[in-house]
């Protein structure tokens, strides 16, 4: 059976940015593995360190989901998937969001339990070249290192996510932001223990967990909205997309007899359906809409 989707592979307008995003995500995975290893080696019994470490491991899910989704998306439609694989990106986004929120809840429970039990964390020393050095310094160094890659990569991702209208990439950018903030909270937790505040570590872990849950909850709402054919949303927001609004207005002007203009989002693309109107001599290729990039409109169908 021939493919029937309107496009195969990435549109030319975003192909270059997609390649840049793929490169960036590969670097993201590489750097994440290096600092997950460093944090794991220096983790000890600190709750905040454990929380930050788990969060950093979870940070691998969005870039992996993006790379998998991108490969599928590139394939275009086939006999089994007539509308192509655009929504694999959305599925990856949901998986990442659920994992993020669930682990946030688990870590918050751990932190609250530690606070309620008034657990005192022991951080010992290690002998290096004849000197006994507090392990907390190694933990702080590992955390400081773990702050650098997410800070740089997250900012680059944000720019690409905007141009690609990629929610998964945007979630990853937010996760990277959460990761470097987690690193700072973790450092403060370790310093707090060093100054004799038993609660500092667990409080830092609880704050980090709450931020993970908040990010996960917001991402879940947007991901679920896309999967149940909700109206296209702005990146990182529940607000309706301005581009979708511009498209709907333009179609209303061209087809004033239409009873409704229905819009849904499949991955980064928008599909429109004009209800109660016939296309007549409408030419999709001549459609130019202010405030909506042409490549975003995947298809416009008519239901007379």
């Amino acid at each position, binding site marked *: 059976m021939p493919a029937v989707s309107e496009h195969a592979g990435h549109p030319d307008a975003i192909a270059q940015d997609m390649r840049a995003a793929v490169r960036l995500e590969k670097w993201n995975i590489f750097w994440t593995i290096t600092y997950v290893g460093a944090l794991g080696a220096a983790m000890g019994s600190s709750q905040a360190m454990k929380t930050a470490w788990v969060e950093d491991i979870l940070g691998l899910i969005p870039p992996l989901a993006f790379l998998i989704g991108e490969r599928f998306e590139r394939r275009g439609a086939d006999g089994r998937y007539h509308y192509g694989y655009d929504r694999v990106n959305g599925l990856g986004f949901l998986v990442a969001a659920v994992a993020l929120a669930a682990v946030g809840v688990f870590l918050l429970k751990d932190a609250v339990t530690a606070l309620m039990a008034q*657990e*005192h*964390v*022991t*951080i*010992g*020393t290690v*002998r290096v070249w004849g000197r*006994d050095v*507090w392990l*907390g310094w190694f933990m702080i160094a590992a955390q400081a290192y773990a702050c650098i890659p997410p800070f740089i990569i997250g900012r680059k991702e944000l720019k690409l996510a905007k141009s690609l209208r990629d929610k998964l990439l945007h979630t990853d950018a937010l996760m990277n932001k959460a990761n470097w*903030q987690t690193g*700072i*909270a973790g450092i*403060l937790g370790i*310093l*707090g*223990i*060093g*100054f*004799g*505040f*038993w609660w*500092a570590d667990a409080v830092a872990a609880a*704050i980090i967990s709450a*931020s993970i849950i908040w990010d996960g909850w917001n991402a879940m709402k947007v991901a679920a909205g896309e999967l149940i054919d909700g109206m296209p949303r702005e990146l990182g927001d529940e607000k309706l997309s301005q581009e979708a609004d511009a498209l709907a207005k333009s179609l209303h002007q061209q087809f004033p007899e239409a009873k409704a203009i229905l819009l849904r989002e499949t991955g980064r693309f928008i599909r429109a359906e004009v209800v109660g109107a016939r296309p007549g001599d409408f030419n999709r290729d001549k459609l130019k809409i202010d405030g909506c990039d042409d490549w975003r409109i995947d298809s416009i169908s008519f239901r007379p």
Partner: protein
Amino acid sequence: MARFVWGLLTLLLAACGPFPRDIDDTLQGIHERGTIRVGLVTMRDVDEPLARDFLARLQRESGARVVTERGPAELQLARLDQGALDLVLGDFASDSPWLPEVAIVEPIVDRPAGDRSLGLSPVAANGENRWVGVLEKTVRDIREDAGRE
């Protein structure tokens, strides 16, 4: 977030002093009292001289007099947990069920016992990071002198 960071930094600066500190001020208590309260538990006869050497070094290191009391391990660890002792010294497994409740320092000397490793280990209350550092240093000095490192 920024407010939290600045708030915590202010608290940390206000708490300047020795670093790291003990959460329950064990080492400060030792200096103030002039004594280290040690609970001795079962150990092999062959390890007794090592335990005496450890306590003598600890005495020199801290400048405080060692006061020992013998008793069963369960009782001594419970007293350590309650703050009635500064240190428990005896034979402990590296995976003792007490491990989450107390800090078992690396052993002065260890030996295999079935699948486990048993060792003559000092045990401190959790979170007493400065005091644990002193115990670890003393253990390592003995091990180095004995060529066990």
